[in-house]
């Protein structure tokens, strides 16, 4: 038997190819039981609690996704609906959350497992107590009235002393017709947790900066927690910050919410959270910055203040940005702990990088072209000077050989010299050394032969002239 009142059978066989879950096992037990009980004449000795437990198991699964499981569930519920042992009756509440502001009333439904009507019953609220004070029951033995139109049992009005909070209601149902009591299984007591919610009043909210030594108030500002306004205060590490407010339930009692946090967030996104303590209706938190300097990692600057107050039974839970405090803390010493690293925004981490283009080396500086051309002209000038000087000196070609053969050789000789000079120009322009040397060989040999003839002719001509 499980704690929540359900009861089921499970198989313990191992090494089966397909293991049947508790649903299939329990449904085959139920089918067998109801089939058996419908044929025998005596009644089976089974307590109503066990039948009710099996019914609660089938109803508690929800809607199975598998068709075979779904069939098992519906088939077993149909068997339980009309069986000869005892028919279970299920007590359910359409809503376990009751709102005081909306003035909900407590409604209870009693049906058979497949939802058809139950016989006339008396449903009694045996006890209702707060889950924090289990001994002190607020309601005792209250009978619920029956509304035949909706087929619900309801409690007219919750007593005036019902405040917000978590309660446990204990119900008991009894079939009115005493003969039919053995036919139906109603169980003994049903416990249902109920949440009663309402609007919590928050008032008298103040924020103040106090001087540490004397406790005197330096600045105090009222906070409007219902509106949107923000305040700003400033403090240094010798002062204290105090936030206070009062909370009370609709009935005026003290209320301690589950969540009452004060959060301070620095510009660098480092956060610190504090719990707001309370005594009775008064809620107050005092932040002594002298002791908190190390906890705040010596970070001075603007801290945003955020107050969060919430509870399961509070219909007006709030999260408010109250404003900011300019905090002036001393410089951190060398061995102070660094603030924890903040998470990097993932959207900026993965972006494309900046483009890089290579900056090429600037070419060496060269003299301007005009300068080169000017010097080119200057170097060519001496050649012209030479030619002009020669003409001035009165050169002539009188010594050129007149007879045919020596003249031809002389011409060829000079053409050979011109060819060698042309070869040098071609080598400068595009030839490589090897072709040049090869050609120079041939030209050189040719030029030697021809030159020898010419020069020896010239020499003999001038010797003839001298001797004559």
């Amino acid at each position: 038997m499980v704690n929540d009142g359900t009861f089921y059978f499970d198989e313990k066989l191992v090494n089966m190819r397909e293991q049947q879950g508790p649903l299939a096992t329990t449904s085959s037990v139920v089918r067998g039981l109801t089939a058996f009980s419908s044929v025998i004449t005596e009644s089976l000795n089974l307590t109503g609690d066990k039948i009710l437990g099996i019914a609660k198991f089938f109803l508690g699964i929800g809607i199975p996704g598998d068709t075979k499981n779904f069939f098992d569930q519906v088939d077993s519920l149909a068997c339980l609906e009309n069986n000869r042992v005892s028919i279970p009756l299920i007590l359910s509440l359409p809503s376990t959350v009751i709102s005081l502001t909306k003035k909900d009333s407590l409604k209870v439904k009693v049906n058979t497992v497949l939802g058809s009507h139950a016989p006339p019953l008396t449903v009694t609220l045996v006890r209702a107590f707060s889950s924090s004070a289990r001994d002190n029951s607020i309601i005792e033995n209250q009978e619920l009235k029956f509304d035949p139109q909706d087929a619900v049992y309801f409690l007219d009005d919750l007593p005036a002393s019902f405040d917000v909070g978590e309660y446990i209601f204990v119900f008991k149902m009894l079939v009115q017709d005493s003969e039919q009591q053995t036919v139906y299984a109603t169980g003994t007591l049903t416990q249902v947790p109920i949440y009663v919610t309402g609007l919590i009043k928050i008032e008298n909210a103040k924020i103040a900066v106090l001087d540490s030594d004397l406790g005197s108030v330096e600045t105090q500002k009222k906070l409007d927690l219902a509106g949107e306004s923000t305040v700003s205060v400033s403090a240094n590490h010798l002062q204290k910050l105090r936030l206070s407010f009062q909370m009370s339930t609709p009935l005026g009692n003290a209320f301690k919410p589950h969540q009452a946090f004060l959060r301070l967030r620095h510009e660098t996104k480092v956060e610190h959270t504090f719990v707001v303590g309370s005594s009775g209706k008064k809620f107050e938190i005092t932040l002594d910055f002298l002791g908190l300097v190390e906890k705040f990692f010596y970070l001075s600057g603007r801290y945003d203040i955020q107050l969060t107050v919430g509870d399961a039974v509070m219909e007006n839970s709030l999260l408010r940005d109250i404003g900011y405090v300019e905090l002036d803390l001393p410089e951190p010493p060398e061995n102070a702990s660094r603030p924890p690293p903040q998470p990097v925004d993932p959207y900026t981490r993965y972006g494309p990088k900046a483009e890089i283009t290579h900056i090429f080396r600037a070419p060496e500086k060269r003299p301007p072209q005009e300068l080169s051309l000017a010097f080119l002209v200057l170097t060519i000038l001496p050649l012209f000077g030479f030619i002009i000087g020669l003409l001035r000196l009165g050169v002539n070609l009188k010594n050129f050989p007149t007879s045919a053969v020596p003249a031809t050789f002389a011409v060829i000789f000079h053409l050979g010299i011109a060819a060698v000079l042309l070869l040098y120009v071609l080598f400068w322009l595009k030839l490589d050394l090897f072709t040049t040397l090869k050609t120079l060989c041939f030209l050189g040999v040719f030029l030697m032969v021809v030159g020898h003839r010419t020069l020896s002719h010239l020499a003999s001509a001038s010797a003839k002239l001298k001797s004559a």
Partner: protein
Amino acid sequence: MAKLLLYLTLATSLIPLFSVAFSPENPTDRRVLVLVDDFAIKSSHSLYFGSLTSRGFQLEFKLADDPNIGLQRYGQYLYDALVLFCPSVERFGGSIDVASIVDFVDSGHDLIVAADSNASDLIREVATECGVDFDEDPAAMVIDHINYAVSNFDGDHTLIASDDFIKADVILGSKKIEAPVLFQGIGHSLNPANSLVLKVLSASSSAYSANPKSKLSNPPSLTGSAISLVSVVQARNNARILITGSLSMFSNRHEKSGNEQFLTEISKWVFHERGHLKAVNVRHHKVGESDEPAIYRINDDLEYSVEIYEWSGTSWEPYVSDDVQVQFYMMSPYVLKTLSTDQKGHYSAEFKVPDVYGVFQFKVEYQRLGYTSLSLSKQIPVRPYRHNEYERFLPAAYPYYGSAFSMMAGFFIFTIVHLYSK
């Protein structure tokens, strides 16, 4: 003897049929092992499992402490992905333990871990190995008194609604999830130093993680939007892990919420049906030529091209984006250029080789939120000018040319004049 031969040939011919699975050419997972606490989960979460099987996955359900389960046999992995829907398991059965799960992920396979409000230490340890830290208090749940799901039955505000999704179309699909996601379970936080883990669904700033049944005296360690409800991890070997603190988020209970769309889309991402890239056909050549040289010269113009495809679940589709960049790198990037695309998956860029010589690399390091990371690198040397690749005739040298040639001309004239003048 003949029969034996027949059996042998039949057996060997069946072996290729077993390899229809995860491979670099076909990266979607196929065989998934689902470990559950009890088989009722198969039924209560049937909508989620149905969405997986309808996309072609073969799910195998086993109990978490079944002594016959194992992830690998004789060195081969039997499954492509693992789903742990067993938050209360104390010890895994068979050959599975935290170390073998970590090895499974390290070899590139995917993992989905769902914890719940009674999560065991073993599941917490698996999550810590993956990089997320669940709240240490075993009874804590995420409570939000402002963004809770209004219902008639859960009055303690532990069923919360959140729509603080990560802005990534590749993880959550291009269609906006209209309804919030309903979550009931434990929250976790991420280490800010971890750069591989992402918060997909965060809690709102009024949320906190505490035991709903007891009062708080100290501020809880997890508050506000630092609480992550669903996180994913994309490991460096491109294995994907999904970690969440609510098993009931996957169940059939929440009909009108955004749970179904959210979980279907994120499962598509986890099982590599989206966001898985491959880069093929890396080529580089001098502008104007088409074959790849073995060495470049400084101040050459070259062109680099690559093709990137994205796996769509069934085939490789061209991947189109405008921020793929190539680096020309030697100890530090000398050139970084964005590649231009022709919208069909072909990316190319042209640039001039820097005038530094050495051994360079073409590097493409592509990392975007939710996509697998591409890391390509191709080495290429760069040489300086040869002796005959410099400028041939310099204007600054004209005077020297002039002097030489004028000398030659003068010599020619002189030979004629000297020999024949009187």
